[in-house]
């Protein structure tokens, strides 16, 4: 290929590169709004396929109806139990602090998933709501009746990136609903699980204990369901034990989520 031909081709292609880069950087906001019209149905379509595929895999183990019913029952019971436990705790606190005025209220902002991460675990996704809708970094993202799936980790005016609980880089302040209400930090581990480390050995943890948010971090209300303990790893010679938690909600199966934003009184 001669130099002249190369020069003839180079100009429009340099223009192409500049257009792509400029569009991605400076036209980010308008671009996000324009693209979300296309992204929402595409993402919803992919999510539907994933939901069907996961349901089909579950059906291979037990019958489909049984699986769906059991999952529904488990989630309903978990929510009910979490609410009961939370009410019991709240009741005790309220008795002690009668007259306490809650300074914050939580409002849910519904958002559609427009993009998902390219990599293992699908550990982050982008939603079509951003700072303009009151969303801030650290806000909780929930599905269903208050099942936490992740936290907002970055925002733009018109979009926000959500990192899921199973991401190894994300830590969430939690409370274990065991006898002594153990508090700690939950962190994602390889695959689709969450680990709670450094739990003192003298604290009793049982399989199927519920894990909820403790509310000890900014932008995160207490009592949001995270998951259930499915394994406890303890070593009699070590001072700490570790709990492996299975999240109750799988973000890959939801195309619409709610972001909990605060409304100051």
């Amino acid at each position, binding site marked *: 290929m001669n130099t002249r031909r190369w020069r003839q081709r180079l100009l429009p292609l340099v223009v192409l590169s500049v257009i792509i880069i400029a569009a991605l950087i400076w036209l980010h906001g308008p671009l996000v709004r324009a693209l979300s019209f296309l992204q929402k149905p595409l993402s919803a379509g992919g999510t539907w396929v994933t939901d069907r595929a996961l349901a089909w895999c579950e059906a291979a183990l037990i019958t489909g109806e049984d699986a769906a019913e059991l999952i529904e029952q488990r989630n309903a019971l978990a929510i009910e139990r979490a609410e009961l436990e939370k009410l019991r705790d709240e009741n005790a606190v309220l008795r002690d602090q009668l007259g306490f005025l809650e300074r914050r209220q939580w409002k849910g902002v519904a958002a559609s998933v427009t993009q998902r991460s390219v990599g*293992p675990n699908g*550990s982050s996704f982008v939603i079509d709501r951003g700072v303009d809708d009151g969303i801030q970094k650290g806000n909780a993202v929930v599905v269903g009746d208050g099942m936490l799936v992740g936290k907002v980790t970055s925002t733009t005016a018109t979009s926000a990136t959500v990192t899921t609980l199973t991401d190894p880089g994300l830590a969430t302040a939690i409370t274990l609903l065991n006898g002594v209400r153990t508090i700690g930090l939950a962190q994602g581990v390889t695959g689709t699980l969450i680990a709670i480390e450094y739990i003192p050995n003298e604290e009793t943890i049982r399989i199927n204990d519920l894990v909820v948010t403790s509310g000890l971090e900014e932008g995160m209300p207490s009592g949001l369901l995270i998951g259930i303990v499915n394994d406890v790893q303890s070593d009699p010679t070590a001072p700490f034990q570790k709990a492996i938690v299975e999240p109750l909600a799988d973000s890959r199966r939801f195309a619409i989520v709610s972001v909990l934003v605060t409304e100051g009184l």
Partner: protein
Amino acid sequence: MTGTLTRVLGFFLLALLQTSLLASLPFPLNSIPLVFVAGIWLIQQESSVAGAAWIIGMGLWMDLWGLSFVPWQTVGFSIAAIVATVSARKLFSHRSLYGIVSCYLVAAGCTLLWDIAVQFILSLSHPEASAWSAWVLYRVWETGLGIVLIWFVFSSTKHLRRLLGIRTA
């Protein structure tokens, strides 16, 4: 400029398909490297920088929205785009499937090495945040599906060249 517009629109369409539709599909379908493969094919067919711009643009896209498992993809994808462009011109033929597959493997190897370097650096400060096993499995599937996609694209080369208005070399 019609060709330039087609390529800009083509990039956005493929990037949307990859990050919205394919990324929402169950594993391993979510690992199909659509834009990367399309970029390699374009580099091979056109001997131009349009394909390279697609690959670099995809790295930038993932970094802007924080969509990548490993950060700083723009750098890794830029290195891959340069290596692919040079190797397409000097080493590999676009007339043979093996030539395009080799070009893809060399470019994918560059991103792999970049990812390993970044993950290693990150693991020094945050060892708990590294998930090597999940990442390796993902990359193996990504490379395999990339080769399958190249085979598919290669067998449709005539139609795609006509669609994009690429003259026969």
